[in-house]
C-alpha cells in the first residue's frame, strides 16, 4: 500500500482545494448563467461533487475515514434532493408549462 500513499502525497493538498474551488465556482456560475432549471439543478450537483472531492481529499490527507463517510451521506442527501427537486419540477411544469426560471415571478414585492 505504501506506493499509494506516496502517490497521494505527490499531489499537494492545495491543488485539490483549488480544483474543488474551481469546480464549485463553475457550478455556481452555471446556476447563475442558465435559465433552464434542470441545468441549474445539474450545476448544483456539480457543486456538491466538488465538495465531495474536497472532503475526500481531506479525508485522505488526514487518513480519517470520517470524511468519506460524510461524502457518502452527501450523496444520499443529494439523491433525495434530486428526487424531490425533480418531482417539484414536474409538478411545476404541469402548472406553469415551463421550466424557465425567469417565468417564475408571480410572487414578488
Amino acid at each position, binding site marked *: 500500500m505504501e506506493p499509494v500513499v506516496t502517490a497521494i502525497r505527490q499531489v499537494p493538498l492545495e491543488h485539490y482545494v483549488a480544483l474543488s474551488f474551481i469546480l464549485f465556482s463553475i457550478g*455556481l456560475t452555471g*446556476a*447563475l448563467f442558465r*435559465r433552464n432549471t434542470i441545468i441549474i439543478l445539474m450545476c448544483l450537483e456539480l457543486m456538491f461533487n466538488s465538495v465531495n472531492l474536497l472532503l475526500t481529499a481531506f479525508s485522505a490527507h488526514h487518513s480519517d475515514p470520517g470524511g468519506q463517510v460524510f461524502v457518502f451521506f452527501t450523496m444520499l442527501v443529494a439523491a433525495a434532493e434530486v428526487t424531490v427537486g425533480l418531482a417539484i419540477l414536474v409538478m411545476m411544469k404541469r402548472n406553469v408549462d415551463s421550466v424557465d*426560471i*425567469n417565468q*417564475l*415571478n*408571480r*410572487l*414578488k*414585492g
Partner: protein
Amino acid sequence: MNTTILAALVPGLPLLGAIVIAALRRSLKGNSAGLLGTLAIGSAFALSVMLFLGHDPAAGPYTAHLFNWIDIGGMHIPFAFQVDALSLTMMLIVTGVGTLIHLYSIGYMHDDARVSTFFALLNLFTFAMLLLVMGANYAITFIGWEGVGLCSYLLIGFWYTNPAYNYAARKAFVMNRIGDLGFVLGLAWLFNVTGSLTFTEVFDRVAGLGPDVLTGITLLLFVGAIGKSAQLPLFTWLPDAMAGPTPVSALIHAATMVTAGIYLIVRSSVLFELAPFTQDVVLYTGLVTALVAATIGVFQNDIKKVLAYSTVSQLGYMFVALGLGAYSAGMFHVTTHAFFKALLFLGAGSVIHALGGEQDIRRMGGLKGAIKVTHLTFLLGTLAIAGIPPFSGFFSKDAILANAFDRSPVLYALLLGGALITTFYMFRLYFLTFWGAYRGDKHPHESPAVMTVPLLVLAVLSVVGGLLNLPHVFGGHEPMKHFLAHAADGIGAERLHLEASTEWMLMGLSTALVVLVIALAHGRFAKKATLDPEADELPFLPRLLARKWYLDELYERLFEKPYGWLSTMFHRVGEGWVMVPLMNGAGRLTQRAGQVLRLAQTGNMSFYLFAMVAGIVVFLLMTLYGR
C-alpha cells in the same frame, strides 16, 4: 384691637366686599351694591386712620405676619403686611380717595345694568392696591401689582361690547406685563443676591453688593415702574385706558394705581440711592415723559384724554423728583395729585354725566351756569394742577422744581416749561368746557348729591392739601417729609439746600408765568373758543402732537403687526414647512426606502440567486479583509 388683625382687615374688608357683592350680584338691587362697596372701603379707611393714629413713626415699621406663603428651600416668603409711614400714607390715599370715588360711582353708575359687577371689581381693585402698598416684601407687593393690573384690565373693558374698549384693555394689560417682566427679573436677581425679599431684610443686606448688581436690579425694578406708571416708552396704554367708566379713570388711572411705580421706587429708595446711574435714568425718563405727554395734551379734544395726558405728565414730574432723590417731594406730589386729579376726573365724569355721555370738548361750552357745583370744583382742581398758590399743587410741584433747580437750572427751566404747557391745556380744557356758548345738543343737568359731595370733599383737599408738607419758607415744618423719613433710610437722605431767597424767587417766577399762561388761554378759548379741527387737518407739528407723536402707529408697525406676522409665519413655516414635514418626512423617507427596497423582491429567481452570490462575495471579502 390687635394691630395685625387691624392691618389684615384693611385689605380684607375690600376683598370681602368684592366677594360678597360678586356672590350676591343678582340679588342686589338699586344702590345696595354701591353702598356695600362704599361701606367696605369706608371701613377700610377708618381702620387705616386708626392704624395711622396708633402708629409711632419713631418705632419703625410694624410687620403684621399672617402666614407663610411660599416656603421652599431657602425661600421664605411670608404673607405679611408692613405698616410704616410710607404704607400708611398710601393706605390713606387709596382708601380715602377710594371711598369718595366709590360714593361718587353710586351716582355715576346708577343706570348701568352691571353696577354690582362694577363695584365688586372696584372693591377688588382696592384690595389689590392695598396689598401692593402694604406688603412687607416684594412678593406681596407684586401680588398687588399684578392684581391692580388685572382689575384695571377688567374695568377698562367694563363695557365689553365695544371692541375698541377691549383692545384698550388688552393693551393696558400687555404693556403692564412688559413692565412686570422687568419687575419679576429684578426680584429674581434681588433674591439671588440677598436671599430674601422682605423689605427690611433686603435693605439690611444690599450694602455690600457691587454697584453693577444694584444698577441692574434697580433698572429692572424701574422697568416695572415704567409699565405701571405709564412712562415712556410704555405710556400709550394710559390714554386708551380712558375707555373705562370715569370713576375708574379717577381711581385707577389717576389717583392710585399709576402711582404704584412711584411707590415702588420710594419703597426701594435704599437700593436706588446706591445706584446713581439708575437715578439718572429715572430722572430723564420722567423729564422726557413729562414734556412729551404735556405737548400731546395740548391738542386733545376728549375731556378725559386731556386729563390722561396730564396724568402721564404729572407722573413724569414725580419720577423726576425720585430721580433727584427727593422722595418725599415725589410722595407729596403723589398725594396732592391724587386729590386734584381725582377731583378733575370726577368733575369730568360729572360733566359727561350731565351731557349724557358726551366727551368731546368741542361739543361742550358754557356749562358753568348749568352745573354749578361741578364747575366750581373743576375750577379748583384746575387751579391746583396749574400750581397757583396756595392750592396744593403749587406746593408739591414747587418742591420738585426747587429740587430740580438745585441740580441744574436747565432742568428747572424744562420742568417749568412743562408746567406752563400743563397750565395752558388745562385751562384750555376748562374754558372750552365751561365758558363760552353751549355747542352741544343735549340738555345738561347737574349731578345728584351723591356725586357732588365727593367733588366738594376733594376740592377742599385740593385746596388745603399743601398743608401736609408746608415748606419752611411758609413757616411749615414739612411734616410729611419727616413722617416719611422714618419709613426708610433712603427717604431720609434728602439733600436740598436752597437759600430762602432763591426759593421765593423761583416761586414768584413760576406763579407769574402761570398766571400769564392762564391769561393767554383765557384770551384764546374763553372768549372765542378756538376749536381744533380733526387731527388730520392740522399742520404738521400740531398734527404730530395731536397724533401722540405717532407713537401708537409706531408701536403698531414695530411690534403689533410684526408680531402677528411672526405668529402666522411660525405657524405656517416653522410648523407647516419644517417641524411637521420633518416628522412626516422621516416616516415618508422610511416608507420610500421600503418602497425602493421592495423592488428588489422582483420575484425573479435568477436575481435572487445572483443577489445571494453577490452577498456572499461581498461578505466573504469583508470577512477576509475587513479587519
